[in-house]
């Protein structure tokens, strides 16, 4: 663009006549510049006009001014652009954050809702009749109606009336049971027993135990835990807790009733037979304590029917004891032989040494308590002791069993009035084990006192007597599980002198936890023996 045309353009743009001179143009530009002092274009035009009038110096000043104003404008524009970019960036970031986190927030809300729903306490149904919830009951009813339909189809002459208006209203289940005669039920029991035994063999890899001295036990269907499925952990824990309550309450009728009710509610699974066995064992022990022969035997058989081999010895222990109490020595002896067979059986398979040794201990106790067989008793105890002593690394359970066996052995040693060295060696081992409870320490000290009394070691006899009285003084309750009957019988022969025997009997009576008496009464008896000894 030429200068001339430029100025022509300017004149047009500013609305001046084409004939206007440069001076007029300059004056107009300067006037405009005053009105718009920040306009770099006006400064440039003024500079150009000045240059064309040969005012170079002034022109140069306006050129610089134009450049300065341009710079200022550029900076302002840059700032604005910068702000705009920043604003845009902020908006983009907000959108990004929003769209990134919205799915996460939604997922968290859904997750929280689901978690709350899952952890919402299960409500107990209003109608809490257990039969309503037992799937097996429902299944049985379905199967029963199917059987009835088939029966009717094949035997059109048969008619069934299950209505409540009928005189002998029966449910389909009751009707089917009534159709089954004794033989049929017997056959069903035998089949179930066989099935149960074969399942045992399959599961544990060993044949089911059968005592040679008695026929196979007949079990009713309800006594055999044979439902399929894995063990329900929560049911096991629940029953273990309930078992401890029943155990402490010692209410035999309640235990019996609970077994029936729980069995109906839970529909015992084969994998849960240990729980059923626990409960039956509790019932056996309870009825045995009550001296109820019939119920003890009934529940001992039910315990057998659970098929849990950990309880075989328990079954025969109680059978031996209860039969002996009832005066049936022959039955007691058969049960004892079964106990021994059971001990041999568990010795062959993968039962723990502590468990096997405990059974030897029980066998010894039975032989001594009920059959006066001191030799078998001692041998069984020594066998149990040897078994555990031969194991290099002993668990706490093993040490506990050893301490109990040692105490039993001590009773046989005192009865047999064994040589002093053997007795002292055993006593030392018992004293150093530190595993006896206070109750059993009382038994130990009573036996030690009697041993020293029968050997006229008066000073040595007085030491355990002092221990006995001081311990009784501190005991809030005297708890032990010690049957003195065998020892008391043995006293007749083991202590020749009448006066010493009488004092020994007094001590036994003081240390018998099954004889209800006050602590002061027990202490008084022991003090009387001490006085008698000191006067000798």
């Amino acid at each position, binding site marked *: 663009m030429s200068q001339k045309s430029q100025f022509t353009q300017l004149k047009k743009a500013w609305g001046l006549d084409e004939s206007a001179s440069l001076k007029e143009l300059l004056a107009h530009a300067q006037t405009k510049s005053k009105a718009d002092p920040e306009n770099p274009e006006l400064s440039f035009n003024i500079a150009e006009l000045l240059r064309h009038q040969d005012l170079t110096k002034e022109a140069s000043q306006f050129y610089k001014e134009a450049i300065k104003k341009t710079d200022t404008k550029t900076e302002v524009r840059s700032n604005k652009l910068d702000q705009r970019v920043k604003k845009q960036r902020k908006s983009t970031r907000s959108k990004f954050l929003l769209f990134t986190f919205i799915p996460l927030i939604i997922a968290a809300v859904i997750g929280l809702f689901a978690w709350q729903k899952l952890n919402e306490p*299960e409500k107990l149904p209003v109608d809490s009749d257990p039969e309503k919830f037992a799937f097996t009951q429902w299944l049985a009813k379905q199967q029963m109606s199917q059987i009835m339909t088939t029966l009717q189809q094949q035997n059109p002459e048969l008619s069934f009336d299950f209505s409540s208006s009928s005189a002998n209203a029966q449910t389909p289940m009751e009707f089917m049971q009534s159709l089954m005669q004794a033989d049929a039920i017997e056959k069903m029991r035998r089949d179930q027993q066989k099935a149960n035994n074969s399942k045992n063999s399959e599961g544990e890899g060993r044949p089911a135990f059968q005592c040679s001295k008695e026929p196979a036990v007949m079990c009713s269907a309800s006594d055999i835990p044979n439902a399929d499925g894995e063990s329900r952990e929560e049911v096991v824990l629940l029953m273990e807790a309930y*078992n401890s309550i029943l155990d402490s309450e010692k209410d035999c009728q309640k235990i019996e009733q609970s077994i029936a009710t729980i069995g109906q509610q839970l529909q015992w699974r084969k994998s849960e037979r240990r729980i059923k066995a626990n409960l039956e064992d509790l019932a056996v022990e309870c009825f045995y304590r009550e001296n109820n022969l019939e119920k003890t035997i009934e529940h001992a058989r039910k315990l057998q029917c659970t098929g849990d081999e950990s309880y075989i010895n328990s079954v025969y222990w109680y059978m031996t004891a209860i039969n002996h109490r009832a005066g049936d020595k022959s039955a007691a002896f058969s049960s004892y032989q079964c106990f021994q067979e059971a001990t041999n059986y568990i010795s062959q398979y993968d039962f723990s040494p502590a468990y096997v040794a405990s059974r030897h201990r029980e066998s010894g106790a039975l032989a001594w308590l009920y059959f006066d067989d001191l030799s078998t008793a001692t041998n069984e105890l020594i066998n149990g002791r040897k078994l555990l002593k031969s194991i290099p690394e002993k668990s706490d359970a093993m040490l506990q069993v050893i301490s109990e066996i040692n105490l039993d052995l001590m009773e046989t040693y005192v009865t047999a009035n064994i040589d002093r060295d053997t007795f002292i060696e055993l006593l030392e081992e018992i004293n150093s084990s530190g595993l006896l409870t206070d109750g059993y320490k009382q038994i130990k000290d009573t036996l030690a006192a009697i041993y020293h009394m029968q050997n006229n070691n008066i000073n040595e006899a007085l030491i355990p007597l002092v221990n006995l009285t001081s311990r009784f003084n501190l005991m809030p309750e005297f708890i032990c599980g010690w049957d003195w009957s065998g020892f008391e019988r043995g006293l007749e022969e083991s202590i020749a002198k009448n006066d010493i025997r009488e004092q020994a009997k007094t001590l036994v009576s003081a240390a018998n936890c099954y004889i209800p008496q006050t602590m002061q009464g027990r202490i008084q008896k022991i003090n009387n023996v001490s006085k008698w000894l000191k006067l000798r």
Partner: protein
Amino acid sequence: MKNLISLDSLTDIVSNSVGILIIFAVINLIHDNNKTYQLEIPIEHRTELSPAFFIIKNDSILAMDTDILFSNATLQATRGAATNERLFALDYFDILGKINEDKGVSFYARDTSKWPTFKELGKGNSKLTKTLNTLDAKTQFAFFFVYDSNDGDDQSTSASGFEAFREAREYLKTRRIKTGWRPVNDEAPANICKDHFGKRCDYLPSYLGDVR
């Protein structure tokens, strides 16, 4: 200084009967300010007595009917409601149950508004007194799960169930019934499990019931 500490005036106070009474009054006041509870030494021991369980929370005492609680828990377990350590309702005074390996069956106490408060103790017609009176000293002892915090209920006398526990213990002691206890809270609630789990499943009496 000599005027301030005068031995004569001190002798006057001590020898004067009114002065002696003042000294006694001051001693009594100090004694009252340092009032302490006479604590009985607990002797926790094995027992042949069976435990009757109670939960104490917010000054209220609830007798746990284990027959109902376990029957309902069994029902829930057969329905699968107790799997995976889930909480389930026991339909017994708003108590929730949970079964897990460590604690056996846990009982979560929540709303105690329907429980009898310990203030009813000793009142002849109160349900709580009747319940405690059914305990047989020869076969039973009372075991209390005592909450050591409350739900912020301002009505309660103390900030825990201990006041109620002490009262109940004293009441039972007069009836020669032994008592045992364990502190519980919402994280470690009352629980019943088999004793082979160890110490935490031991329910032993610690206070003797015999009045000497």
